[in-house]
């Protein structure tokens, strides 16, 4: 409970974000999202719209974006749903940020597979750059969050930074990625292991080897 986000002061947030409205482009997108659901069920669009709103806030603030209360209310009003229902959704999912984040939202996975494969080193690399869990660095570049499993266990340990996953990390590669990001470069997303392309076994297949060349029927061998 102690590390639950502290919602920023309401009056300040309302003064800054009270006039939030879709940009022309996002208004089109929102319309398209709502149109995906049957009439009268427009509330189903709350998650994509909150995401869209968060991205718009991000674009306006040059960060990864977050959801100020007036923005949540704007989305709820657009979908004709009570504010608290949209607020519940926004607080439930960790993908919605309830407090401002930096330009890069570094989400380090600390669940068992990543932990076993060295997520502590990844975390250390982040802390080495002055990041503190749940906080944004003073230069506004990085926000560090420890998250639960992101479903990339075959490439553990991994982090998600904004919309990209960085996988097969260790202390050095993580430090390099952070340096690159800080320097404004875009490091290669995905696996950082030069011997892998995606999530295939390192050094070639270890099972079902006969399938590599052709469709092999294993059933006779069982």
């Amino acid at each position: 409970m102690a590390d639950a986000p502290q919602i920023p002061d309401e009056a300040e947030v309302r003064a800054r974000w009270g006039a939030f409205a879709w940009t022309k482009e996002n208004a089109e997108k929102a319309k398209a999202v709502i149109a995906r659901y049957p009439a009268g069920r427009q509330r189903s669009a709350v998650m994509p719209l909150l995401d869209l709103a968060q991205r718009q806030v991000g674009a306006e603030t040059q960060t990864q974006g977050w959801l100020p209360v007036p923005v949540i209310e704007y989305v709820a009003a657009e979908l004709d749903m009570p504010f608290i229902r949209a607020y519940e959704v926004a607080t439930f999912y960790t993908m919605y940020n309830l407090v401002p984040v930096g330009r890069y939202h570094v989400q380090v996975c600390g669940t068992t597979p990543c932990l076993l494969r060295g997520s502590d080193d990844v975390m250390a690399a982040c802390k080495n750059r002055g990041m503190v869990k749940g906080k944004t660095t003073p230069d506004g570049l990085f926000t560090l969050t420890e998250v639960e499993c992101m479903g990339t266990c075959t490439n553990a340990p991994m982090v998600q930074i904004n919309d990209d996953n960085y996988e097969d990390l260790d202390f050095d590669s993580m430090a390099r990625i952070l340096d690159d990001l800080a320097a404004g470069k875009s490091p290669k997303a995905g696996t950082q292991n030069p011997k892998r392309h995606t999530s295939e076994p390192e050094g070639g297949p270890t099972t079902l080897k006969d399938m590599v060349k052709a469709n092999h029927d294993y059933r006779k061998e069982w």
Partner: protein
Amino acid sequence: MPKVTVDGVELDVPQGATVLQACELAGKEIPRFCYHERLSIAGNCRMCLVEVSPGPPKPQASCALPTAEGQVIKTDSPMVKKAREGVMEFLLINHPLDCPICDQGGECDLQDQSVAYGRGATRYDENKRAVTEKYMGPIVKTVMTRCIQCTRCVRFAEEVAGVEDIGAIYRGENMQITSYLERAVASELSGNVVDLCPVGALTSKPYAFEARPWELAKTLGIDMMDAVGTNVRIDARGRQVLRVLPRVNDDVNEEWASDKTRHHVDGLTRRRLDRPYVRKDGQLVEASWAEAFDAIKVAKAGKSVAAIAGDLVDCETMFAAKALVNALGSDLLEGRQTGLDYDVSSLSAVNFNTGIAAAENADVILLVGTNLRWEAPLINTRIRKAVWKKGAKVFAIGPEKDQTYKVSWLGDDASLVGKLPAAALDALKGAERPLIILGGGGLAVPGVHGAAIALAKSVNAVKDGWNGFSVVHMAASRMGGLMLGYAQPGGIKDVVAAKPKLAFFLGADEVDFTGFAKTLKVYVGHHGDKGAHAADVILPAAAWTEKDFTTVNTEGRVQRSEKAVFAPGDAREDWSIFRALADALGVNVGFDSFDQCRAAMIAAVPALGQEGLADYGWSAPKLPAKPEARAIPSPIKDFYLTNAICRASPTMQRCSEELVHGVDFAEAAE
């Protein structure tokens, strides 16, 4: 009708019943926290686990499992016992052990069920979770660390109150129940979440640390705050009423009560009139009963006497006053103190004929000049149910006010009742069970009453098995008063015009007293409010918790309430005041005891002797049906301050300031 076996007993259960309901039919007690008969099924507390075969070999949540033919249900097997112990252990992991300082103690579901179904000892020695305090308004005190997340309050707010302000934010272990941004819950039914909460997370703020449930004497009563006639239980300790809780009555209030019903009680001990007063040289000075009676005697009013009943008086009081006024040779009685003068030649035309419970079956509803949410909150929940569950359509004429459901507002011009827009008229005509509800604002405009009756006829709202013409009153005394003849053809104007030398004001505070400048005004009531300020003689009487009485609600339901405590100081029960006054004035009212008074009342109006719906028949009179083209007024300006008791209540004043006038108390509360 599926046939199921519960613990070896075979029984037929209704189609669609849940396993939990089947167990209850079989007389088995199933522990539960989240399940509530009047709310939707959530299935998240897992306390109602039972063993069901055929089915997966694990315990099943009985509240959310439908019965099926041939099911064998076990509620007392080792598996069930172990499952309940396990669930209870998990619930208690994060529940603080603060029962000694918890207001729910003694009436706590978690306490009771942990005694009955828990393990008896804890194995948990980690830190417990703590939740930050929440603010939910002036009525509900929160200690959210105690919350077990049953979500009953969330479902109540959404489904019954219609105010979607409460929700569960965050998730997993961090889940918290809160009002939106911790603002006050803007519902006049918010107090019900206190009863719904199975633990001590939501408790009553005004009642905090006042008493333990076993100290309280419980008396069955009928609430007098509005004309719904909410069935309540009056909890008193010694001479003080500490709280009022609703009782279950499916025909009237289900099991809800409005915040006014619950929390006006702290007004019962404040601003009370506890001794007689007589006005001398423009000042009200304390007097003895004899002096007060003398002051009335010297007026030598003879036959020139009137009685005006307020909103909070009961039938026996009105009858006793009527007996005295009649014995003095007058028949000037009026109960509509604000000056309404609608026709009462047939009580069926001013009654909530549809019935409160049946109102939820209506399919098209027209509200005429009523802010139902404030005039009768518990009728409004029925209408909301009709809209929310059964898809009824609601049209309304009158000043726009949020009713918690979707309403098509047609405008506030009274003449609309005579010429309804086509959309509304067609909907009413096409409806199977149309319902026209006429409220206090509508009755105040001449012609609206007649036009509404004519409309009911033209859309065939009154037919076999359905009477869709209903009037909703705001005063608990109204229907009883009308049955007892407290109505003049011209309303209170007739009383003023008759220039009575002596007038009794039975707790009447909303009267325009300027018309009675030359009259000796005797205020018989319990609170020092507007009526007492204007009075020449004050006779202190009993409030509704301090006497046995009969009352009639807006649907003509005769109900009896019992005396919970004694009136303070020299105050007396109303009937005895009029009995004594009769002696002082040298006339005979024909009764010497309360029982005789009630018997005489029943002899005069037999319908008051029978608890239940009074039968007025349906014979709507033909009335002028040309409403003036003017805006319908809204008679209730402030829901929380409608009568003398509420105005004396600090809780109601606080509610009014915060919820009606928007004063912010949230900061001060912390």
